[in-house]
């Protein structure tokens, strides 16, 4: 393992790879700082560029963006009280009051230190867990892989925000999309409507560009109407001392622990982990007392920021060992792996270990770059925060169009991307977590192939899916998660009915007197 990791660092340390990592991280901080723009969108925008690159350099720039956006989101959360990314919303709770007190530089300093500490701890966790899990995963048989895929999709549906119906419906839409084209086992056309262009399936790059590119612009056009006002324009980063940071170790260690654990669960991502870590640190805190949180305490910035960046390491674990993405960005990276001729999943570590170790090396280098860039150039990012979306959106549309076009050198994927953009925009507006559609589309072929292969090998015996104890555990996890979801849906419904009854009762009592 150590040998592989050293090799990964050697490959990533070439001047061109370091430059790409640096540019990616700076771009990530920039994108993260701008409300409405996100890491998946930035990666999508760069698709035409990454298509033309070798695999590792392409992933260097993607990892840089992924890491950088995590910190960038806190800049606007602190200075605008408008989080640049959903995961940074929690940072605004204490970051903005600190900025209001005239300590914006210090608040940004705590955010930078928290993000760096979380990123480093997340990296340690990923490096420790990935070889271990990959070794176990390599012994998986087709039924195991199918169950892992189904468990991943159930987790995505269950933990994604919104209702259970919408989460599962999103996954099923993705699975149906993945069924389009020639069936790999029987060579029969499905949903092709006799169109040769659909024989190889719905172009995956187009789905990604539509959902994470066009849909976001359609949705955020409101930002070109509503302006934003910075709290302060003259910001100098004020990094806290190491002693100060060590004194508050609980905040960033708890934050990182949540980030690593929750980041590894598909679909939850950093959004959930930041709030959970914040609540835990707040409840356990004696100095400052819990009631001081929300008034601008450093622990309220350190915990969510550390958690946010630790999810990068956590999310890479299922992505690199099982082929299950933890969030939107890792979903796109999985798609990019396929486009670069790799086979993501349990065999990745066996067949292409240099990619796995290269990505791990990139993660650590990007975290260090993130700290250096924030330390030295924060003023530039604050300057860009003042720019209007009216300049950025037209350029993003051009990049997204050419990204879809260059995936097949024809206009068909662009039209598909626009359709998915409209679909994603509408469904996101109705509370559907669109990442579920993408994950369904990615995991669909893997699940179907392995279910059919597993059944074929067992002579059509369905009991093969509970034939060993790990399969029983996986099947139980799936059943339990679905059961919990159904139960909580019923509970939420009866609670809503109770509230409605109480409200009607109260209205009825008040009405005659009024």
């Amino acid at each position, binding site marked *: 393992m150590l040998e592989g990791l050293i090799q990964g660092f050697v490959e990533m340390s070439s001047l061109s790879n370091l430059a790409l990592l640096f540019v990616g991280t700076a771009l990530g901080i920039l994108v993260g700082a701008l409300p409405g723009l996100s890491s998946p969108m930035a990666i999508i925008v760069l698709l*035409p*560029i990454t*298509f*033309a690159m070798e695999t590792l350099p392409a992933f260097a720039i993607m990892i840089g963006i992924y890491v950088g956006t995590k910190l960038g989101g806190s800049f606007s959360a602190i200075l605008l009280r408008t989080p640049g990314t959903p995961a940074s919303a929690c940072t605004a709770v204490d970051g903005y009051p600190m900025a209001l007190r005239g300590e914006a530089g210090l608040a940004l300093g705590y955010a930078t230190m928290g993000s760096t500490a979380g990123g480093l701890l997340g990296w340690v966790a990923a490096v420790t867990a990935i070889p271990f899990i990959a070794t176990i995963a390599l012994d998986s048989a087709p039924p195991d892989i199918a169950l892992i895929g189904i468990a991943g999709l159930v987790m995505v549906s269950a933990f994604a925000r919104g209702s259970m*119906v*919408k989460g*599962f*419906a999103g996954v*099923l*839409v993705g*699975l*149906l999309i993945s*069924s389009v084209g020639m*069936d790999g086992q*029987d060579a*029969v*056309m*499905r*949903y*092709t*409507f006799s169109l040769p262009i659909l024989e190889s399936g719905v172009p995956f790059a187009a789905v990604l560009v539509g959902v994470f590119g*066009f849909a976001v*612009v*359609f949705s955020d*056009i*409101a930002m*070109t*109407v*509503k302006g934003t006002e910075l709290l302060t324009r003259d910001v100098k980063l004020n990094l806290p001392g190491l002693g100060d940071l060590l004194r508050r170790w609980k905040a960033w260690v708890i934050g990182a622990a949540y980030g690593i654990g929750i980041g590894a669960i598909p679909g939850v991502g950093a959004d959930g982990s930041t709030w959970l870590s914040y609540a835990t640190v707040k409840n356990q805190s004696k100095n400052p007392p819990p009631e001081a949180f929300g008034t601008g305490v450093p622990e309220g910035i350190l915990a969510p920021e550390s958690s946010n960046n630790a999810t990068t390491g956590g999310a890479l674990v299922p992505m690199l060992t099982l082929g299950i993405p933890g969030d939107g960005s890792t979903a796109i990276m999985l798609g990019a792996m396929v486009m670069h001729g790799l086979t993501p999943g349990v065999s990745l570590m066996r067949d292409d270990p240099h990619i796995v170790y290269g990505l791990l090396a990139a993660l650590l280098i990007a975290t260090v770059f993130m700290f250096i860039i924030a330390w030295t150039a924060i003023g530039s990012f604050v300057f860009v925060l003042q720019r*209007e979306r*009216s*300049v950025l*959106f*037209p*350029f993003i*549309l*051009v990049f997204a*169009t*050419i990204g879809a*076009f*260059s995936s097949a*050198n024809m*206009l068909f994927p*662009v*039209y598909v991307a*626009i359709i998915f953009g*409209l679909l994603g925009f*509408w*469904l996101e*507006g*109705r509370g559907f977590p669109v990442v579920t559609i993408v994950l369904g589309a990615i995991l669909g072929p893997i*699940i179907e192939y392995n*279910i*059919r292969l597993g*059944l*074929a090998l067992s*002579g*059509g015996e*369905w009991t093969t899916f509970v034939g060993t104890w790990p399969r029983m555990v996986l099947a139980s996890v799936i059943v339990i998660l679905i059961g919990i979801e159904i139960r909580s849906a019923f509970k939420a419904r009866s609670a809503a009915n109770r509230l*409605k009854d109480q409200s009607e009762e109260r209205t009825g009592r008040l009405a005659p007197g009024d």
Partner: protein
Amino acid sequence: MEAQGGRSGQISEGWKDLVTAVGLLVFALAGFLYINPNGSGVWPGPGGMTWRTMPFIYSSLLSVLSIIYVVQSILKIRAERKLTRTPVPPEQQAENRLILFRRVATFAFLMAYVSLLRVFGFAIVTPIFLFALFRLYARGDWKGDAVISLVGAFALWLLFVRILHLNLKGYTWDPVTPFLLDALSMVGL
């Protein structure tokens, strides 16, 4: 309880949900109908499943979920009818109309851009597309918009055509791409 709406002519959340739910149901039913008419059975036979089985399972589950969603939407519409409606303030209405206009126009410009990309080429249609969007979003004065559109489009052309070697020339009428390529060759790039 209060809900915003009144006589603003806006579609209620419940109706939007119902439209979405019916759309999903239609999608799920299409999943049954269009798998492929000339096929084998649906259910697993000896030795495994057929190519129709998984799409059939997906469509069945999606149909069930869509029907649940339809029922939820109808209940939501009924609940909304009981709520007191407060009219949307005129400024908010004007802002909503502007956002809707910009969204529809962005979509229209995007469709025109994509349709004309292979006709007149990237070098001609991109600056026009950028300029149109800058004007739509009221970015600034038209001279500034024109400069950013031209410079930005040229930078993107250099990246896509010169560096990444994408074929983005127009096939009907595109005098700009050969001119730019010749000009770059003349200066040794």
